[in-house]
């Protein structure tokens, strides 16, 4: 029986690439290689309707997904209304709506 001392061992916050399973991330990048060209400018998040109403941050979520951090990504992406403004402002020409749908399709079971 585990003993409770009034606290628990904090889980590490670090993204552990060795530990993360990058298979889904690889699949996503294979289908949408342009996602790698994101330079993190944040224009997508700045223009985002959902991002202005919630904590939703498209840039951050897809970056985490690329690092193999899938937990909660589906739910986050579900906040997107697919209006497509982000695609219009992306300086790298990333098919952002496609990314949202791809990530949701790949990570539906996370």
């Amino acid at each position, binding site marked *: 029986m585990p003993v409770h001392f009034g606290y628990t061992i904090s889980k590490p916050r670090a993204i552990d690439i060795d530990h993360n399973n990058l298979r889904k991330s690889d699949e996503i990048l294979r289908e949408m290689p*342009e996602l790698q060209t994101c330079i993190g400018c944040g224009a997508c998040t700045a*223009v985002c*309707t*959902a991002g*202005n*109403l*919630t904590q939703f941050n498209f840039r951050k979520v897809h970056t985490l997904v690329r690092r193999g951090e899938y937990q909660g990504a589906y739910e986050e992406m*579900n*906040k997107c*209304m*697919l*209006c*497509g*403004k982000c*695609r*219009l*402002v*992306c300086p790298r*020409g*990333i*098919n952002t*709506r*496609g990314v949202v*749908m791809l990530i949701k*399709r790949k990570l*539906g079971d996370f």
Partner: protein
Amino acid sequence: MSFYAPFCLPFIIGAVVMFATILWKWGSWLYRLPHADKMRILRGLPTTRTLSAAWEVVRESLLHRRIFRVNPLLGYMHMSLAFGWFLLIAVGWIETVAYLGFRFVPLQGHVFFKYFATGLEHKPVFDFLMDLLLLFVLSGVALAWGKRLYSRAMGMRRTTKHVLGDRIALSALWFIFPARLVAESLTCALYGGGGFLTGSIGAWMAGHIDAGVLIYLESAAWWIYSSCLGLFFVALPFSRYMHIFTEIPLIFLRHYGLRSSEKESAYDHFQIEACSRCGICIDPCQLQSVLQINDVQSVYFLRDRRYHSLRLQTADNCLMCGRCAERCPVGIDLNTLRLNSRDTMRNVPDEKRYDYLQGVDRSSGTGKVGYFAGCMTLLTPRILLAMERIFKASGEEVWWADKEGGVCCGRPLMLSGETDSALKMIQYNTELFRKHGITTLVTSCPICLRVFREEYRLDGIEVLHHSEYLLRLMRSGRLNVTHGAERFTYHDPCELGRGSGIYDEPRAVIEAIGELLEPAETREHALCCGSSVANTAISDGQQLQLARSVAAELDATGASTIVTACPLCKKAIARGTQTEVRDLAEIVAEHLQ
């Protein structure tokens, strides 16, 4: 007189398989129709709709009027095969009656009448008629062969790439009528008779071929003819030739008011199997003509869906511009079928989704007229400013629904297939409009307009595109514009033109300001800007390629300004040209008196 010979067997088997399969298919589709659709059929049956449907069947299934519009030669080819064959059957039946009176003759008796009627006295009128009809059909077959070699002659740059089953059925079809010609000619050679075609060839054969050989050849020819028919009939329900029979009930059901919707239904089968894979939809597709994407067009989409091999990639890769549906000779509702495929593949209802929308209201102003800019207009603030000036000039009190940012109209979600989630936005915006008590809703975004008109329940609120609204203001004298010598060209946004049927209003507005020059492809045939929110498969570079090709056509008019009436089209086309691209509202605001 017995109407049986061993060679009839392939034909009989084929016919039985074909009719059984068709009846089973139709039966199960009709049985699985939603109750409301069944009621529509029952209510429609005893009305004049049945008659008008029958007339359309004659026009389209037999005469192929719509294909004639695409290209007369192509129309003739289809007509000669369909109408010609139909007449062969019909006149053949009359011929049997003429020879034998009204008595039961089995099917093969009608079809192979020449073989069985050798002992009867000849009726040259029928010999002539039947030969004429056979020639009519054969001319179609010859054209079909020719089309394989050179499709451009029939106005088609590209033709469908067929699957193996279709090729087998097609080959069988090609050989049916030549085989019939040979078989009937050989019978004539042995037993005399026949018209100008079969009779002449028969006489020639009798003169050149030994009688013993002729008997042998005759038997073989009838076997081949029957086998071709049998093979074609067996293949028919499983190949594209199912359209021959499916188009007929489709026309009736359509006349009774049945439609496809964003959810798949049994009615969709009638639409899907009515596709003849003629490939007319391929040429208008800009993904094909500009981007050389060759496997996603409606013909392939319907084929894959019919054979349950549809991939999301195919379903997604469509601009939904509607250019193919505009040309489809069968009138299949291609966009809706694609939408409900996306719905099936992607829609995941989630009650909690978009809960964060509760209580959001960033609207401002008061007025009975509400203006919904839409997401895209917020990225084209010139349109917003122009609308502001127009409202001010006309003295309209406006309620700004989303000037400070609002919730998406839901159309992009619907287009991606997330139909149930889109309802959340629809519900949210509907409540917002109701809360502020507007009686007119104006939007400058055709994407929003379409969903407002088709999916929102806004009884008591008139929904207008700003082109309609502007024209109304101008006609009522509340807005006066100066007319000058400036030359404009107009790009029809897909959602506004083919989508909502609004072609004339923006043109009227432009003509009040300056000269309007039409591009090569315009109105129903207008090109898509390429940035359609319906397509999530093509890349940014491909969007740009499309934009450039559209802009080139618009630039070719020599106009100094390209006008459009959609913020997304405006942004897209502007990427492809140096010419100024402006929204209708901008030029109106600029020319205010």
